[in-house]
């Protein structure tokens, strides 16, 4: 198998960590993985994104022109990356920060959910929106299992961050049951 995905949003939304978690979980499933952040002169404040590639064989390029999946947590990132999703690919959109009407693609599967609100309601933390979205992505795509994501969270979140593990797990699982919340899961048309 081979799967490439971009995770994107504003700085401060935990985008890079989300990608890290995804890659780490895939690694625990004995996959080859790469995690590649994009960054620039405007690292501060501005946009944040990373590309994760998961594959059962050795990975060449860690970046991709066309991607199978996109997680988007902001309006600018949606506008910037939606065009790169392959036909038939998957978009997971946090509608708390981007109006689903902005999605122009008709040939992809769309999961649009107000992840920030969900996170706030379910685990009491707006900031866990990234985990909600990741859970939804995992559940829908099957690229990694929710169990491995939980395992990876335990590995990654250590020290002062250790106390976040339960919250993270909860948020992931909320995402896993995304269908409960989803404004729209729009499968590929035509």
């Amino acid at each position, binding site marked *: 198998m081979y799967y490439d995905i971009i995770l994107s949003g504003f700085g401060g939304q935990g985008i890079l960590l989300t990608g890290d978690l995804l890659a780490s979980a895939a690694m625990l499933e004995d996959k080859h993985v*790469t*995690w*590649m952040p994009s960054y*620039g002169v405007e690292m501060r404040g501005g946009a944040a994104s990373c590309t994760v590639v998961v594959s059962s064989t050795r990975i*060449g*390029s*860690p*970046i991709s022109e066309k991607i199978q999946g996109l997680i988007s947590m902001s309006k600018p990132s949606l506008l910037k990356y939606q065009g790169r999703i392959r036909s038939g690919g998957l978009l997971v959109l946090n509608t708390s920060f981007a109006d689903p009407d902005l999605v122009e693609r008709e040939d992809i599967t769309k999961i649009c959910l107000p992840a920030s609100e969900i996170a706030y309601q379910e685990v009491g933390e707006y900031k866990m929106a990234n985990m909600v979205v990741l859970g939804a992505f995992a559940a829908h795509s099957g690229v990694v299992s929710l169990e491995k994501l939980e395992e990876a969270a335990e590995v990654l979140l250590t020290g002062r961050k250790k106390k976040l593990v339960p919250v993270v797990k909860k948020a992931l699982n909320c995402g896993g049951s995304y269908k409960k919340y989803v404004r729209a899961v729009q499968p590929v048309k035509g």
Partner: protein
Amino acid sequence: MLQGCVALAEGAIAAGCRYYFGYPITPQNDIPEYLSGRLPQVGGVFIQAESEIASINMLLGASAAGARAMTSSSGPGISLMQEGLSYMAGSELPGLVVNITRIGPGLGGIASSQGDYWQATRGGGHGDYRLIVLAPNSVQEMYDLTIKAFYLSDKYRNPAMILADAILGQMKEPVRLKKPPVEIPHKPWALTGASGRKAQIIKSLYLGDGEMEEHNWHLYEKYEQLQRRDTLVEIDVDDNADILLISFGSCSRMVQSAVGMARSRGLKVGFVRPITLFPFPHDTIRELSREVGRVLTVEMNTGQMWDDVRLSLHPGCRASLLARPGGGIPSPAQILSKMEKLLKAGDKVAEGIC
């Protein structure tokens, strides 16, 4: 899973390096940031120098005192180190310099680029000298080749450089940390104080008649030895391959994807990756280019390694170049389509023939 810069830093520590001197510059700040926390944990010293010039000269001093030590920087900072590098090579001092490149020339940008190939391999400083240049293409190699670089640098008493870019520095991949037993060779030439032996000098100026010429030939002989004994290259060539792709560093990852795509379409292709850029694997390429007869070099610059490839090629071999400078990244699809075009053209089209 580690970031490339962190793997490199851990490689340095595994190699017994305990001294880091450097000045911030993107996209390599993860190295000093990581080491500023890590080195004191292992009894080492981290100094943020006031400039790259101070950095390279602190490195020179630490090396003269016999320690394994390093600095790291990117394009503009590496340019500022050229005098110091020339002195280190002239004084036969080992030491590691890491260049996580930027786009050039000038201030440039921090995207991935391979535009410092000439500077690294031809000696950007003055005089007849070379750096030992290693070009990893994975996070694992960021770790492994750092250890190797310290080894070669001490072996030949010549500064070594890791040439990588933002892709390799920023990317995370799984890494196996090997913690090899650290064997730092005895350095009888180090300046430790003239106790129980004659006073020693580390210098690069020899005033006696003909001494400088002799010294230059001595250095040259070391470089020839490197060429003969310590050239590293990755080879992955199909039987009866129709085309040979040559690429190094991050760019070679895109080429590897393209090779995979080509093979899945039933093409017979070869792939060669110089791991040491100096010494360059001239012989390997000469031999393979003779066998395969058609070469495509892919680089993220305007064609710098292209010089070395052309200096290696078997006469009559058809050679083409796919070059993308300034942060442009040749995608696997672009490489594949170039490959297919060349194969389709057969003997007719002769782009960049050498």
